[in-house]
Each structure stands twice: as C-alpha cells, then as structure tokens.
C-alpha cells in the first residue's frame, strides 16, 4: 500500500455575458457641487467587487482620482436597469455602461472647465489628480471641484452622464444551432498535482499551477481573489461536494455543513497563478471577466492527475475516496503512469 503522486492538466475557454446577448445594463453618473461623483446602478455586489471595479472604470473614464467616485448600488428607485450579476457579465456589461456614462459626464465637465478657463475644450486634459489644465500648459489649470461649483451655481450645467451597454440578442437556428452566443471569451489552463492513497482512495491536493487569460486585469487584487477562491470551489466540486451522494437516487442528502463536505484549511495547497491579458475589443478597457470560469479547469485537471497517479479514470463527480478505491480494486491495484 502506498501513496502515489500524479499530475494532470486541462485547458478551457469561457463566454462572457449572457448567452445570445440581449442582456442590457445601464449606469448614471453625476457630480455633486464639490466635484465628487456618484455612480448609480442597480447591479449587485455579491462580494466579487462590482462596486470597486466600476468605481475604477468610472474614475479612469472621467480622469479623476478613484477617491472622488462612489458607487451607489442597488436601489430600483434610483439605479437604472441592470439584468443582474450572473453569467460573468458584471465587468463587461456594467463596466461598459459605466464607462459610457462617465464619458458623457466628462464631456460636460470639460466644457464647463473650458468656459471657466476661456479656452477651447479640445485643448484641455485631466491630470487624474483632480485638475483640468491646458495641454502643455499645466499652470492654466482649474480643479474639478471649482469646475463643479461653476457648473452648478454659475453656468447652470449638470455634470452627468448616462450609459447603457447591450449586446443585441442573437437568434438560434433550430436545425444547425447557428448563433452568436458571446462577443468575447476568457481562457485558462491549469496543472494539478495530487497524491492518491491506494489503501483509502483518498486524494490530497499537492499544488496547482495555472495561467488565466481574462482580458485586461482591471484590478489585479480582485482578479486574484476570484482565481484563488474559484480554484478552491473547483477542488471542492471535484473531490468533496454533493447534496445527492448516490445520484440519481435522491436519498442520503446532507442538511448542514457538518454533513456537506468541503475542503478545510488543512486541505489547502499552494496555487501559483499567471495572468495573461489579451484585451477584449468590446470590453471596458479590454476587460472580460474572471468570475465563473476560474473553477472550471480544476475539475478535469484533478481527474486527469488521479489517472496519472494510479491509472484509474473516475468519470463521475465528486471523485470520492469510495469511487477511487472501487476503481483501483476493479483494475487490480494502482497502476502509476509515466511521471510528468
């Protein structure tokens, strides 16, 4: 009886946004008289960072510091329509709507600044630190706060913008399945290393190495939290979780986290991640969305690593010790494959 190590890999792609499109999101951006901006949305922050990523997109598009932007969501009386936070659509759809709204608000802000500075609006630029100045002449400058005050109390302008993003709905051909499901795709490849105990059937994660391509990583820390957490959801799905352990027999379901198995802190292994950024032509600053796809390559990579370790294929999830052990017994013992 022994423990066997093995490595397996898998590579995947994932569509961004609701399949077939037709899933709009809107955003409203406006400034208060101190030059502080509010983004009004009805989109949901599930913990993934919706408020934060749209805040950065808005600040970038306006040309103001991120501290000057606050994202208010979600209130159906004040936030315009959004389809919802699912289908990896938040960054791509809502991000684009916010960028469009911020662009419209910026245009008014620049016109108001031009009037105050008595220059042509085409000659102005933002410094990203809260000032607007004449290109090439930083001393001819006005703060966004002073612009906002002038716009509100002197010029009678509203520094605000509206944005919507919609991928038009695609039809589906009943006979061939011809359709336009998505406009951009994220990609990943993951290598899992496992140790399989041929006496107990238990699988231990040793390490993971991965490469994820997500369009532009709009906030690398938010990307990291998604990829690390998502990969562990994948491990959990591959090796532990199910509410129906004898599916399709619905009996013996768990009732709580004592009976519903998931990996604990002691089961965590190192995960080394590389992020590639091939910007999506229609993404906000090229962003796609790391949300859903990060768990997907883990499941098959783990299954393939188990094969490499002991030579058995478990084609049913979750890959429990019982299933591994039965498969090892059925083939008359572990048959480690060539080490990689």
């Amino acid at each position, binding site marked *: 009886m022994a423990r066997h190590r093995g*490595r*397996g890999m898998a*590579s*995947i792609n*994932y569509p961004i946004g609701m399949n*077939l499109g037709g899933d709009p999101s809107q955003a409203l951006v406006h400034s208060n008289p101190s030059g502080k901006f509010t983004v009004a*949305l009805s989109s*949901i922050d*599930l*913990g993934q960072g919706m408020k*934060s990523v749209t805040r950065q*997109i808005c600040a970038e598009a306006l040309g103001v*510091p991120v501290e000057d932007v606050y994202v208010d969501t*979600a*209130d*159906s009386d004040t936030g315009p329509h959004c389809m*919802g936070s*699912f289908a990896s659509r938040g960054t791509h759809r809502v991000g684009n709507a916010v960028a469009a709204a911020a662009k419209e608000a910026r245009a008014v802000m620049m016109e108001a600044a031009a009037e105050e500075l008595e220059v042509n609006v085409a000659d102005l630029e933002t410094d*990203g630190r809260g000032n607007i100045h004449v290109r090439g002449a930083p001393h001819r400058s006005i703060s966004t706060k002073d612009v906002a005050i002038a716009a509100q109390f002197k010029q009678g302008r509203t520094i605000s913008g509206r944005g919507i993003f919609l991928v038009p709905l695609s039809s589906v*051909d*009943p*006979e*061939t*399945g*011809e*359709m*336009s*499901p*998505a406009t*951009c*795709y994220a*990609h990943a*490849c993951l*290598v899992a290393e496992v140790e399989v105990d041929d006496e107990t059937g238990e699988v231990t994660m040793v390490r993971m*190495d991965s*490469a994820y*391509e997500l369009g532009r*990583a709009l906030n*690398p820390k938010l990307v990291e939290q998604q990829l690390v957490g998502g990969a562990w959801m994948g491990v959990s*799905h591959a090796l532990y979780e199910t*509410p129906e352990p004898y599916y399709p*027999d*619905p009996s013996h379901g768990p009732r709580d986290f004592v009976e519903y198995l998931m990996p604990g802190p002691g089961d965590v292994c*190192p995960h*080394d*991640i*590389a992020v590639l*950024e*091939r*910007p999506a032509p229609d993404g906000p600053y090229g962003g796609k969305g790391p949300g*859903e*796809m990060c*768990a*997907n*390559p883990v*499941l*098959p990579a783990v299954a393939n690593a188990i094969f490499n370790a002991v030579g058995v*294929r478990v*084609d049913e999830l*979750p890959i429990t010790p019982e299933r591994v052990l039965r498969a090892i017994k059925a083939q008359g013992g572990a048959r480690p494959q060539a080490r990689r």
Partner: protein
Amino acid sequence: MLELRKDIFADERDDNLREVGKPTQRQDMLGHVTATSTFFNDHQLQGMLHLKVLRSPHSHARLRRIDVSEAERHPGVRRVIRGAEVPRNLNTLLSLINFGKDDEPTLAVDKVRYKGEPIVAVVADDERAAYEALQKIHVDYDPLPTVFDVEEALKPGAPVVNETYPRNTFLYHEKYDHQKIRFGDAERGFAEADHILEQRYQMSPIEHAPTEPNGSIAAPDTNGRYVVYTSTQALFFSLDTCAKILDVPSNTLHFIGGTVGGGFGGKVDTVTEPLSILGAMLTGRPVRYMIGREEEMTYCAPRGAERIYIKDGVSRNGRILARKFRCYFDSGAYTRLSSYAVVKCAAHLPGPYTIPNVYADVYCVFTNRVPATAMRGFGVTAVDFAIECQMDKLAHLVGMDPMEFRILNAYRDGDMKAHRREAKNTALIECVQVAAEKAKWRIGEEFKRASSRKDGGGARAAIPPTPVARPMTQPQPSSYDRPAYDRPPEPYRAPPPEPYRQPPPEPFRSPPPPPLPPATTHGATRFSSVFGRRR
C-alpha cells in the same frame, strides 16, 4: 501567488492607465471587515412578522385536501396563505425574456412535483409560532409514481412530472425536445478516424452554499408602495418577476439590495420575495422570509446534475476529426433557468478546439427533484469536465503529451466555430504554454512556438457541407424574442379552479415585433445552414 505576464499580448494593450489595472482597495472593504456593511437581514423593522412555508414530504403527489383551520387559530399566527391567494400563481423565470412557458406555482395547488415544494405559507409574530402552526396544517396526499433519472424520464410511459411539458423535456423552437448543433458530417469524420472513443460522464448536483442564505424583507410603504430588502443577484429581474406574480405595476415595488453575502447563481430564482411581499400586502405589516441553512441545502435549488456522452474520432497524428455529443440537464421539477443553460452548453461545443465535424443534441429534462438553477459556470462546468477528461484520454490513446495535444487542436484566431461564428481574440495556446512553463512541464519546441494569432483561418474558416434533416427554405423566427420587460399589467384573473388543467394561453398583450438588431459588432452575419454561404 499571482504573476501578471505583461510580456504576452503587450502590443494589444496600452498599459499607461491611471486607475485601471491598479490593485486599489475595495470600496466596501472597511464596512465588510468591521461588520458595518448593511445586508438585507440587517433591516429589522418595527412590527415585523415572519413567514415560513409548509413543504411537501413527497416527491410527487396529488393534493387531495388542505386543512389550515387549526393553524389559523394557533397563537401568534397573523395569516395563512394558500396558492389561490397568489394573484398569478404560475410563472417561469425566463418569461421576462419571452423564453419558455409558465410552469411553476409559488404555492402548489393541485399537486406537488418535488420533495420540499411549498404548499402553504404562514405569517406569524415570530418564527417559532410560524413553525408550530405549520405542524397544524393537515394535507391529504395521494402519492404518485416518481422519476429521478434523466434517461428514464424520456422513456415512453414515464411518469409525467410537469404537465406543462408532458414529454418531460423542455420544448425548443416549438418543435424539438433538444437543442441541436450540426456542423460538418460527424459520421464521415468517424469513418476517416484511426481511433474512436465513446465515453459517459456524470456530474452530480452541488450546493451554492453562500455565507448568507436566500431571503427578503418586505414592508408596506406610503402611497400604496412596498419596499423590499433582498439578497437577490438580479434586482430588476426579481422586481419584475414579483410584479408579474403579484399582478401589480412594477413601480409599486421598491427593491433595495446590492450588498450580498455571496450568490454563485443561487440568488436569481426569486423564491422568497413574492411571498414576503404578499405577506406584507395581506397583513399590512413588514414580513421577513429568510430561508435557513438546512432548508436551503435540502429544498432549495442546487446546480443541476448533467449526464454527458461524448464520441470522438481522432487520427493517429493527433487531430480530432469528429465529435458527437449528447447531454441531459436534470432540471428537476420545473424549468427555472436550465432551458437557458442547454443553449449555452450547445454554443460551447466542442470546447476551445477546432474540430471540423461536430454533432450535438442537448436536452433539458424534468424529474421529481428540487428544481435546479444557475451556478458558476452554468451550462459549461460539467461539459468542460467531460471534454477535458476526454481530451486526456484521447492524448493517451494517440501517445501524445496532453499539453501538446491541446495546442495541436486548439482554436486560433480566424477559425470557424461549430456555432458558425469566427473565433477572435483567442488565447488558449498561450495559456497552455504559460501553465506548462510554470509547472515545469516539458513541451516540444514547435509547441512553444505556436500562437493563437498564427495559422488560423484559411481552410479552417470554412463552414463544411452539413447534412441537415430538414432543410430550411426561409429564415426561421427567433424563439428568443425581444425582452418584454415591464409589460402593462393585465387585470387580475382567478387561477384555473380545477386541478390538472393546462394553464390558460399567455394572457399578455403580445409585444410589438422586435426591431432588427444592428448587424455590426459581434459577427451576426447570417449563413445559410444548407449551403454554407452568405444569404
């Protein structure tokens, strides 16, 4: 540890941005770590009542008699709600985008179709009184035969789970019990192949298990409006669903949410909001309906199971020549969102590889289990498990390294995908190369030199001649018509009084014909499915 590989695709990016690309701290971080962020359940309102539902102990049963008189007399009980009191007690979530038929009641009236299906709701002063009252509801059940296996459910004579779909499958394009992909000639591909591999994969359901379970609090507001604090993942989706079920104009409802303790797809179904609002309407008091952990784990929608059969033909030099795919989504007793996942699954095939012949049939099947719903990677996760296990087996079969086998078959810019759109902005090859490098997994020089931006298109951009059972003579209308959001409310209609009658035909005013989408950005060029050329 996370490393940004800025060297790859650098020529496609401008990295001189000020805010985008920075690891800025989250806007809500301080609130979250100091426990001052406001979640829906933090709205503890004065005079708030609590709602609980009676759930079916049977997986399939006729409801002969429901007696709530004893429960109504239980101390602390303010209101008992029956299915007949729900204004429009039949809905399907994707009716908001005109997809599918209304098939699920808020509270069961004639029969129950899964163990845990809500039958009666009790609104009481506290949760304890509500739970005690549930014990005093007497229901006479007449158990019916059940079906739990997706392929059993498709056999003639299988118990009919949901009368809206009497063949136990969702109906696609008004005529098929599955969604098809037909690209090239799979049988010819198999005939040319050196190896054939056919395998079966089974994914069991899993829980979303967010930290915060599903729930909502609804309260009467001034001017006949209702304010609703909710954990929904989709604010307007839930609001419009409630407006439909409760038969009120959408601006009667004021939904507040946005700060949610995890979702993973399990908070789209809008299972609590219609009842908490109805409770508030019937009692004039704030009503909270929070689903407990055991209830959520036992009776609320999980990620559904999928059964997948893949048959591949591969040449001895490692090129996949044909892929045939059959998949069954276990939707449980009602559609919820599984019908959508089937089409997304079909669109995903054959995975991120260029395979000249692809054939697929994907089914949404009804069984007597808890309805399944969306979850992270919806329609794709199980497919990727199956495809990537299959890819490993194929590489083994032809004696190739699995990384090199992926790169050899990977899709590249300009290739034609099985859903007949050109691949763009691809990066699978680069991900494989970088993962190999990180894991110190040796791959050959020619595979290190491969690129998503080279060697695609050309002959790989062609749509192969495709045998189609029923040639199309004219463009078919889309079965996914324009979203009919926020339709004007129809006058209240009493639900059909007799059990087992088909729901009345769609009473909504039909929306105006959809404007044609601008054929611009996302490759919406139409091709003839028969002749493979532009129309």
